[in-house]
């Protein structure tokens, strides 16, 4: 298989995924609504004072993002597994990691990118000082691709299990911890007025490493799941 036709298969898979997702918009919108609702719950639970809310805002938004990525993970492979598309992808001559990368990219486009755009709204609701908004969006921008890639590994591992929701959170949440730590630290240092570039660069490095390795793990997991 030459490069050109592999590339064509990749764009076909991506276009198809995009079309399928856009025809079932609720699957795309619901995880985002979930984030907004979780964010809304916190002021009601801990009180509306700006001092507490501002301190926990980054953590709440990021934890909500992690949970919503688990919530939306079924969309990645589940339907394709049930209707046999996944088998065709595994059998196709294009390298499976490449196709997995395409699916991750589309998933990020529909779940990660909207979160970045939604972040200022959540930051406002949680009274995060404006100094932190830009860095919060930046951490989401470089962090969510990693989130999508790791979620894809978990989703690929559990796709053949009927209900893998609780299992998936057990598998994935421990692996998200570095992401959470660096993102929170970045916003924190922006809030105290120091440069956040160190943490953001570290996050970017982790994101690139994950995007490099995760497609191979996804491909291996899909081969195991499809048998």
């Amino acid at each position: 298989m030459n490069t050109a036709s592999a590339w064509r298969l990749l764009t076909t898979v991506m276009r198809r995924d995009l079309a399928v997702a856009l025809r079932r918009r609720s699957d795309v919108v619901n995880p985002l609504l979930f984030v907004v609702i979780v964010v809304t719950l916190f002021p009601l639970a801990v009180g509306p004072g700006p001092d507490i809310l501002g301190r926990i805002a980054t953590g709440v938004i990021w934890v909500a993002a992690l949970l919503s990525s688990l919530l939306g993970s079924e969309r990645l492979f589940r339907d394709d597994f049930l209707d046999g598309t996944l088998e065709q992808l595994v059998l196709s001559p294009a390298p499976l990691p490449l196709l997995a990368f395409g699916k991750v990219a589309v998933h990020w486009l529909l779940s990660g990118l909207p979160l970045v755009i939604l972040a200022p709204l959540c930051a406002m609701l949680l009274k995060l000082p404006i100094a932190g908004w830009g860095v919060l969006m930046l951490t989401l921008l470089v962090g969510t691709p990693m989130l999508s890639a790791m979620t894809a590994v978990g989703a690929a591992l559990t796709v053949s299990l009927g209900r893998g929701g609780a299992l998936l959170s057990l598998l994935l949440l421990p692996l998200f911890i570095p992401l959470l730590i660096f993102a929170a630290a970045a916003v924190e240092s922006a809030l105290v007025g120091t440069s956040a570039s160190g943490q953001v660069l570290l996050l970017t490095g982790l994101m690139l490493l994950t995007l490099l390795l995760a497609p191979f793990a996804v491909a291996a997991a899909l081969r195991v799941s499809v048998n």
Partner: protein
Amino acid sequence: MWKWLHPYAKGEAAFRLLGLWQPWLAGLAVILVTVGVVWGLAYAPADYQQGDSYRIIFIHVPSAMFAMGAYTGLAITAFIVLVWQIRTAEWAIAAIAPVGAVLTFISLFTGAVWGKPMWGTWWEWDARLTSQLILFFLYVGVLALYYAFNDARTGAKAASILALVGVVNVPIIHFSVYWWNSLHQGATVTRFGETLMPASMKYPLYISILGFMLLTAALIVYRLRNEILKQELHRPWALAQLGVEKHHGV
């Protein structure tokens, strides 16, 4: 070497080889753990600062070491499962993971018991404690995935992929958590021959570490032999094995 090693990939050969090792491993483990722990708990001198409560180190440190050691073993086994697709290695995943999880739990528990008199708290969100807790979650995840599938081979392969993903992440998690917070005292045993401990405390600790290593190995061997026997029960050799053992009344 491969020619010599390869026959042991078969269940029966592995079962017999492990059967030869098992009494030695188990016997030495019992002796060394007993000597190390009794020496440490009863005869080693009390610490000038921490008094008698430091003595839990003779259990805490070895279990923490082999909690991580077992994960390394798990990752190597997972690699063998995925590359060479050896069934005995698949069963070894199920043998290693619970032992590692229990060791991790012991290190966390003894750490909490030690932390209460020393730091005044059962739990502190300190770097080492946190990364050990995450290691425990990784073990639980591997085990949960292993047993989630109806088909044991699929489960073993899925768990292997997860174990390898985990082993790539362990250093990242470790270093990120370190960067985040640290309260734990520095490593006592830095490298061989060079420690911050006097000999009277060092030797029981070394013996205990060696004992825990053999104990870990013995438990894994024991579990793996059981697993092999359970999976090969349809074969005549396994039935014969059980018959013979029944005859001896074991």
